[in-house]
Each structure stands twice: as C-alpha cells, then as structure tokens.
C-alpha cells in the first residue's frame, strides 16, 4: 500500500531533481514565460555571458506595456523602449515571441492556456505573481522574482521549498450574477490577504467541478491575493476539452499518452492536508472591495466597516483605507458613484468574462466612460465574432486591443488622481491603477452594472429584468 498523496505531492515529486540538506528542492521547469518586465533578468544572464538553457521551453509575450490604443501609445519612448528590449532579447536568444501584431498576443496568463502551452502536470514559472492562474489546469505554477527568472533562463530549474498544502472545499450552487471572482474575494476577506501564506491551495468541491476553465483560472489567479503562491485544481474532462487542439498542445499519440498521465493528477482519497477550509457557495453574494487591500471586501448589500468597532491595529488600517478611498464608515457600499469602469486583466479578461458583462450591457447605456481591453487578441477576435464589441461600443464603452492595460497602468492606461473606477482586475492597492486612483474590485457583471447606473450596484436586479 502506497502512502496517499496530494496533487501537490505528485506534482512536486515529478519535478524534483534533488533536495538539499536544508530542505530546498531543485525543480525542473517545463515552461518559462517572460514579458517586458523580465529585462532585469536578461541583463543578469548577459552580464555573466550565459545563454538561455532551453529556448524551446521559453516563451516571450508583450503584455505589461502593450499599447491598447496601439498607434497612439507606441509613440511613447518609454513604452517602445520596453517592447523593443523584449524583442531584442527574444531575437538574440531565439525565443518564440508573441509580439503586438501576433494573432496569439495577449496577457501572459491568458496566452499560456489559450496556446496550449499550459498543460496539466507541468511546472510553469513566470516573473509575475499571477502565474498561479495556470494551476487551474493541474500545473505547478508560481510567480518568481528577477533573480529567479535569470536562474531559470540559465538553468531551466528553480530552487524552491515545498509549501504546505491547504484544501479549499467549495460546495453548493452559485446564485445568478455570482461568479468565481466573488468566491475569491469572499475567502480573501475571510482569511486575510496573508491568510494562505506559505500554502499551496487546492480548490475542490462541487462548485469547482462545475466551473468552466475561465472560472477556474479566475479562482487560481486570485490565490496570490490571499497570500498563496500556488493555486491548484485537479484536471478533468472540462480541462481536457479546453486543451484539445490548442496550437502547442500535444497531438495524436502524444495527446493519448498525456491523457493517460493526467488521469493520475488528483489528490488520493486518504491524503491529508495541513489545512482544510470549507466554503458554502450558496451563501456568496456579489462582492466588492471598499479599501486598498483585496481583503477589504464585502457583499454589495452591506455597509462600509466602521473602525470604531475594531481592535486597535485593525481600526487604524481601516481608517487609513477609508481616508484614501474617500469613503465614510457605516455608509452602504451600493450607490457609491464611480467615475469610470474597466473590463479586462488576467483575472477577468477572458471570453466568458466579456460575455457576462455584455449580457448586462446589452440594450443599455453606460452612464460613465469605460475601457474594455480583452485578455488576448484571440479573445478579442472571438468577442467580435459574437458581436460583443458592438454591445460595448453601443453602450458607450471603448473597445481596445489586448494587454495588461488599466490593471497596472504601465502602458499609459491609467485612472486619474482621485477618480473612482469599478474594475474587473485583481489589485486595489493605492495607486495601482495610477497615482491617487481609487479602485473597487468586482466581477465583470458587477462592472457592467456599475457602468449602467454610474454607481456601485448589485447586478442581480438587472439580471431579473430579463435582459441577461
């Protein structure tokens, strides 16, 4: 009888080349994704005169600085410098580059799965914290810093200590207008932005099984906002259906062999976790953030917390956030006027996200301006085929090209100082969307509802109108 193992155990041991006496493992990296921000790492291997160890396993994507209004922004010297820099490194090291005009371009965490580069059972690294996204396929995927990126470039391996294992059981049926984004904001509010630190989270339970790959990616993507570097979901038919026929996914006999291997990628029945958490999906309402940390999230139906009701340290943090956000304790969050909306990012820029926003916006007008940036050129093309672009444009929103865009503002798509934005992104940190920007995180459907009313709004009554 073999010892029962978790999915994490299985993935870890399959990649472990050796373990050092101090407990660090040297792991093999199957896919390494780089972007413009990887310039520090390229400079580092350059200075040591080292080549890229496995150019075939390294893929470069233009996303963080990608101009979403292509021609206007590429004139910005800083942006063109960053894009050019990646091009030069990709050419020099013979890497496959998803450049601005490539039909496969997009945000790295959208492109990987879409291109079939992300597969169950792989170890995937990228110099970006939301690399946890790829765990939705049953891959060991985690974000790394520049020194580590240089290490992976030079050796195709990474030193890492095995995290603890946490299982999050999510059971029950999500209500209408409630999505994976709401599940994530909910548990992060419950456990805290460091609640899962040091852990790999495996998401399990009936709700997770019912989620599409898009929903699963949203869930794994946000793991890092609760402190976990890894999110994991065991692959199943939904996963295989999504992947079959993708450009870089295995074909024919290789596909059959892969399918046979992937069937074993699940936690054994008796395996034990360091922590088990249970979440009741039926109870989750559309959720929004009111503060400057993703843990500062509440159901749209409730009121902004009052620091007076909190312990010393916490009270101060709440007061600080309320100050920055220009909000008052005790007010209902619903009805808070917004200046603009943003739909996009690696969290919620996929086709299903755009569909759910369009379902709310169809035959309606936005009261505030907004930008829609699909997660990839493929998502853009698909949305245009389905006529979603018309819905957004007719509602009065701007339909732009793919990139990280207003999630991080590096390409110039920023929220102005003191402006309030309803956003489908992942971070409401101070100044994340631009200096002085006020960000409220929510699902794409909730962003659409905010656009329609010009305020933070419960999307559910809008769905009942029969228009969605």
């Amino acid at each position, binding site marked *: 009888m073999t010892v029962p193992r978790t999915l994490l155990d299985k993935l870890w041991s399959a990649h472990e080349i050796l373990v050092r006496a101090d407990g660090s493992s040297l792991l*093999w990296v199957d896919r390494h994704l780089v972007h413009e921000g990887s310039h520090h790492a390229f400079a580092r291997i350059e200075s040591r005169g080292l080549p890229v160890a496995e150019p*075939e396993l390294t893929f470069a994507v233009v996303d963080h600085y990608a101009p979403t209004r292509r021609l206007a922004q590429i004139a910005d010297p800083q942006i063109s410098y960053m894009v050019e820099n990646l091009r030069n490194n990709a050419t020099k090291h013979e890497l496959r580059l998803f450049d601005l005009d490539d039909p496969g371009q997009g945000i790295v965490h959208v492109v990987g799965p879409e291109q079939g580069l992300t597969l169950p059972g792989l170890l995937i690294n990228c110099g970006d914290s939301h690399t946890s996204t790829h765990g939705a396929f049953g891959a060991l995927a985690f974000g790394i810093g520049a020194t580590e990126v240089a290490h992976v470039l030079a050796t195709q391996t990474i030193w890492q200590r095995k995290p603890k294992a946490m299982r999050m059981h999510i059971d029950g049926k999500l209500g209408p207008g409630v999505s994976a984004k709401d599940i994530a904001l909910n548990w992060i509010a419950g456990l805290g932005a460091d609640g899962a630190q040091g852990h790999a989270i495996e998401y399990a339970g009936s709700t997770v099984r019912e989620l599409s790959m898009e929903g699963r990616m949203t869930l794994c993507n946000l793991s890092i906002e609760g402190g976990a570097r890894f999110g994991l979901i065991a692959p199943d038919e939904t996963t295989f259906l999504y992947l079959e026929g993708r450009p870089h996914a*295995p074909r024919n006999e290789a596909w059959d062999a892969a399918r046979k291997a992937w069937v074993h990628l699940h936690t054994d029945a008796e395996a034990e976790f360091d922590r088990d958490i249970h979440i009741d999906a039926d109870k989750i309402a559309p959720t929004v953030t009111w503060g400057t940390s993703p843990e500062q999230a509440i159901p749209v139906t409730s009121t902004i917390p009052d620091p007076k009701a909190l312990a010393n340290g916490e009270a101060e943090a709440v007061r600080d956030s309320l100050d920055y956000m220009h909000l008052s304790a005790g007010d209902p969050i619903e009805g808070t006027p917004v200046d603009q909306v943003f739909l996009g990012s690696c969290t919620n820029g996929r086709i299903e996200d755009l569909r759910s926003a369009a379902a709310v916006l169809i035959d309606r007008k936005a009261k505030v301006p907004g930008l829609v940036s699909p997660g990839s050129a493929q998502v853009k093309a698909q949305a245009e085929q389905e006529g979603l672009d018309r819905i957004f444009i007719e509602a009065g929103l701007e339909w732009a090209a793919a990139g990280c865009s207003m999630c991080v503002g590096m390409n110039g798509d920023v929220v102005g100082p003191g402006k309030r934005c309803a956003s489908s992104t992942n971070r409401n940190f101070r100044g994340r969307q631009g200096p002085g920007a006020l960000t409220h995180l929510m699902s794409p459907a909730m962003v659409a509802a905010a656009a329609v009313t010009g305020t933070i709004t419960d999307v559910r009554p809008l769905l009942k109108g029969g228009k969605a």
Partner: protein
Amino acid sequence: MPGWSRHDGHAIAFPLHNVDTDQLIPSRFMSTPRSQGYARFLLHDLRKDAAGEDHPHFPLNRHRHASILIAGRNFGSGSSREAAVYALVDAGIKAVFAPSFGDIFAGNAVNNGLLPACVSDDDFNLLIRSLGDGAELAMVALDRGQFSIGNVQVPFALDPSWRKKLINGWDDIDLTMQHLADIERHRTKLKQTAPWSRPVADV
C-alpha cells in the same frame, strides 16, 4: 553579493500593514535600468506629495540613515517585482522585521542580501513601542537569529536555507551549475517518460 552575519544600524518603526510592492515601488519607475539606482523610488507615492516634495512626517524622511525597518504584517505582498527589493537595498536597508511577508518578496529579498525576518505579533508590538517615532541603534545577529534594540532583545524566524544563503552571499546559479549532471539526467528521463511535456512547435 557579499554575505553578512551581523549588522549594526538604526532601526525605525514603519508599522503599516499590507505594504504591497506597488507601494514599495510604483510601476511607472520599473523600466529604469538598475545601474541608475532605485533608492529615489522607494515608497515614492507615500513619501512624497503630488509636487514631488518629501512629506516631513514620513518615517524614512525623518530618519534617512535608517537601515532596519520594523514593518506591519504582510510586508511586500502583491506583485513579484524584484524592483521593490532594489529600492530598499539601494536606499541602504539591510533588514526588515515584520509579523509576516509576501512569499515572493521574501525570496527576492534574500536573493539580494536583504533580510526578511519574521517576529511574533507580541514582539512586533514590543519593538514598535520601544522605537516610537525615533531611530535607535540596533543589532541583527543573523547566525543566532537574534535582534536587539538596546535592552530589548527578540528572536526572529528565518528559513535555514535563507540564513545560509545570506551569510555566505551565495549565488544560486553558481550552486546549480554544480548539479548539471543531475539536471541532464532528469531532462533525458523526461523526454522518455513524458514526451508530451515538451511543447509542439509552431506549424
């Protein structure tokens, strides 16, 4: 990167919770080559007003010689940007003590000789109380896992592999290169047992 095992310097309190890497360095500065120095970007938008003038009350503006920060929980959460560590290191910071750290940040810190040391909530409160608004001479003993400000002495937790790395100033690439034969073996085995794991080339 030179190793170190003891550091004497001035400690200050910076007790905000959840100081994320977007605060440590706003993204708009990240295209700067490292050779130009990152000190001026450290906590830029918290430290300076809209006109670019320093806020006189901000701890790091009052005590520019500080090399040790006592920070709130979840320090360095968020983005994997190593530039957040560059900004701290270039500004002369050698150690950060906090109840908890963002995982990626902590790894990046160690890779740049910066100590991310975990202290208990009680010790965190003790340190904050004993520092107040001031800057006090303090001592970090990396080898013993002890930190002291005057008579106040607290232990700190650090992954043993990180302790070793900081003390020896090790570079991972050099270490890994000693294992090339093992890596090659793994690579060959993988090609045989899981050929599907390599990407199908573009057609």
